[in-house]
């Protein structure tokens, strides 16, 4: 009796297994010229990418299966598909993941095809170098992805507000000093309708995205040269964070925390209530529709006298398991450097051109705001830097800085107290990340 039951279970199991096997074979039977591309983005980006991909399909007589996710879901979905060894042939990587992916054999060295097909001198060096890895440090060696874009995080100001207030316009080439910046911001902060409440502010910045500029221009940094030591307790760093916090707690030139929480400064900027605000290329199509004049300027400069900001980037990598790696590489190259594809992305307003000659034309010819588009290019070519976690194998040590920073911004703690307190924790996390990377 028992044996028969077992036999039945066995039979069912075998049947089940066969079914699964069939299913598996069915889905993995991809045509020779068929590849999958996984990416993330908003609707505008999706439409622009679909157009670029359709063009690629025509050129290469290929079929590209698109897997599109929201920005929030992307990392989780990609990681799950990698763990399950169902890796899309072509997908987005951020520079911070490149080391891990290379060590784990997930993404392919595409240097050869790229060098054969692309004039890399005509592509942002920063964008390309973000995906080079020589096995030890990022930024040099073999190329593991093509830049999808670069995102020079620039600074803008509300020109209309300046004109109405009768304040001389900021120079587009010479940055304010920190003191000048506070002075101008104070002048801009006012109660315009006389109801006793401030309704216009000098600026309103987010610490996680704007502190970099202040720290770097003051001569501080997150890490030492070889990325082994956290240096957030340096006097330059402390001074920069304190300056940042003092903008709201001492000088009152930003919306208070509760004002910023209820209507974030991004919304307030768009309603014309904020004088200075960061501008990324991805913001431009939205900001084009603002009903005030605005333009780009360099960030105010600290002790070094040099302005500073960061450049973001996202790359397009090819999976090590792609069954048609050559075609997959061609797709990455196409999306990154094909002129028509780039044009459709630039027209959609999702990025600045990846190609230098195109960018030159774009910065001088387009009549849409901002006037000083060249500032984006200056950031990209001259003074933009990678975000600190882009060059380490994970970002946990970096995120640790933001996690409990609120008391500093509220004035309940000094920058010095906080940074000396958080540094050892960051160091520990960095050590772990570095050790793990070397073990990997």
């Amino acid at each position: 009796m028992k044996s028969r039951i077992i036999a039945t279970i066995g039979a069912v199991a075998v049947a089940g297994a066969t079914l699964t096997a069939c299913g598996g074979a069915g889905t993995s039977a991809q045509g020779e010229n068929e590849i999958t591309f996984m990416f993330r983005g908003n609707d505008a980006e999706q439409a622009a990418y679909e157009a670029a991909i359709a063009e690629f399909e025509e050129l290469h007589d290929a079929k590209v299966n698109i897997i599109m996710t929201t920005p929030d879901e992307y990392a989780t979905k990609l990681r799950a598909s990698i763990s399950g060894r169902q890796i899309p042939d072509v997908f987005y990587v951020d520079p911070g993941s490149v080391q891990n992916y290379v060590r784990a054999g997930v993404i392919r060295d595409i240097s050869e095809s790229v060098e054969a097909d692309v004039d890399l001198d005509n592509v942002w060096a920063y964008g390309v170098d973000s995906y080079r890895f020589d096995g030890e440090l990022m930024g040099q060696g073999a190329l593991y992805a093509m830049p999808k874009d670069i995102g020079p995080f620039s600074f803008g100001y509300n020109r209309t507000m300046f004109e109405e207030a009768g304040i001389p316009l900021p120079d587009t080439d010479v940055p304010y000093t920190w003191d000048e910046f506070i002075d101008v911001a104070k002048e801009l902060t006012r109660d315009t309708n006389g109801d006793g409440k401030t309704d216009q502010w000098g600026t309103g910045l987010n610490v996680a995205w704007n502190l970099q500029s202040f720290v770097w221009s003051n001569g501080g940094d997150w890490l030492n040269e070889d990325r082994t030591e956290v240096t957030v307790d340096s006097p330059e760093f402390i001074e920069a964070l304190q300056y940042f916090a003092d903008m709201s707690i001492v000088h009152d030139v930003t919306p208070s925390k509760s004002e910023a929480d209820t209507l974030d400064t991004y919304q307030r900027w768009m309603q014309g209530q904020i004088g200075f605000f960061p501008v990324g290329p991805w913001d431009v199509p939205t900001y084009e529709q603002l009903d005030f004049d605005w333009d780009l300027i360099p960030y105010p400069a600290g002790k070094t006298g040099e302005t500073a900001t960061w450049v973001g980037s996202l790359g397009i990598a090819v999976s090590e398991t792609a069954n048609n790696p050559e075609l997959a590489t061609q797709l990455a190259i196409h999306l990154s450097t094909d002129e028509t594809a780039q044009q459709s992305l630039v027209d959609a307003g999702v990025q600045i051109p990846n190609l230098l000659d195109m960018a030159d034309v774009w910065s001088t010819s387009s009549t849409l705001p901002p006037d000083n588009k060249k500032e984006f290019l200056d950031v990209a070519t001259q003074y933009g830097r990678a975000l600190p976690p882009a060059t380490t194998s994970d970002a946990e040590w970096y995120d640790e800085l933001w996690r409990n920073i609120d008391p500093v911004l509220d004035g309940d703690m000094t920058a010095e107290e906080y940074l000396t307190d958080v540094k050892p924790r960051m160091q520990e996390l960095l050590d772990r990340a570095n050790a793990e990377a070397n073990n990997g």
Partner: protein
Amino acid sequence: MAIMTPAALQAPAAPPTPATRRSRLHRREHMAAAAFIALPVIGFVLFIGYPMLYAVYASFTRWNGLSDPQFIGLDNFVAMANDRYFWQAMGNTLYMMIGIPIGLLLSLVLALALNRKMRGTTFFRTVYYVPVISSLAAVAILWQWAYNGDFGLVNQTLAIFGIEGPNWLQDASTAKPAIIIMSVWKGLGFAMLLYLAALQSVPRHLYEAASIDGANPVSQFWHITVPMLRPVTFFLVVTSIIGGSQIFIEINIMTPEGGPEFSTASIVWYIWQKAFQYSQMGYATAMSVVLGILVFVVTAIQFRMNRRSEFSIE
């Protein structure tokens, strides 16, 4: 060398089972039954059993989810003991379970109210059940709006009564209560429905007998209704605690960074962050194994306690 244990020695020889002759039909039925049972069993082994065993193994490894796991013994568990965020996330999760008794109480009150014969009960039952069938993600987004300090529905409502509401989700002191309120609201309908069903299955004659004996409605409630509802309460407590310990979606949507100063990061949220943002699958699985064991132990204790207090009505 067969060693007979004392128990085996004392065990009476099994009575010879009469050779039951089973018909072919009977055997076929057995086989069919086995086949039906086999499918879920196989499903369980493949999709739950194997991953569970693998997770236990992975919890002893250093693993980034990409390369092969490396065995490192108990290191992950030691690290966990020293990880302040692990404890903070555990504490947050526990704190947010305050919503469970509150929710149970409210849903019982609601069920009692809706159990009366009055106009519109069906309408109200439906209204209270709507949140249950709505997508948790959508609900979380709605509540996120409702909690906006200036323009949110919650503070606008409070303003009518002259109360100035806080910036719920941006303030470390109100973020957790905000999430609790939302979860209670979301779970209310489900618990209410079960209580309603249970209330209606309480035999009427118990109340009749009690009132003949002179019991007033309050003591009837405590001595008949509450005990009769115990199985449902037990079910709700067990499932809510298991669900509560796994709270994630509302946290992730309403406070994507784990809240101001990590104040709303639940343990599952922290596990997710470690696994998918920081590529520490090994450590994340170690935490989930600990969480799994905790949930198991708590549930086992509940079952024990329930068995002791179980009673039946002849």
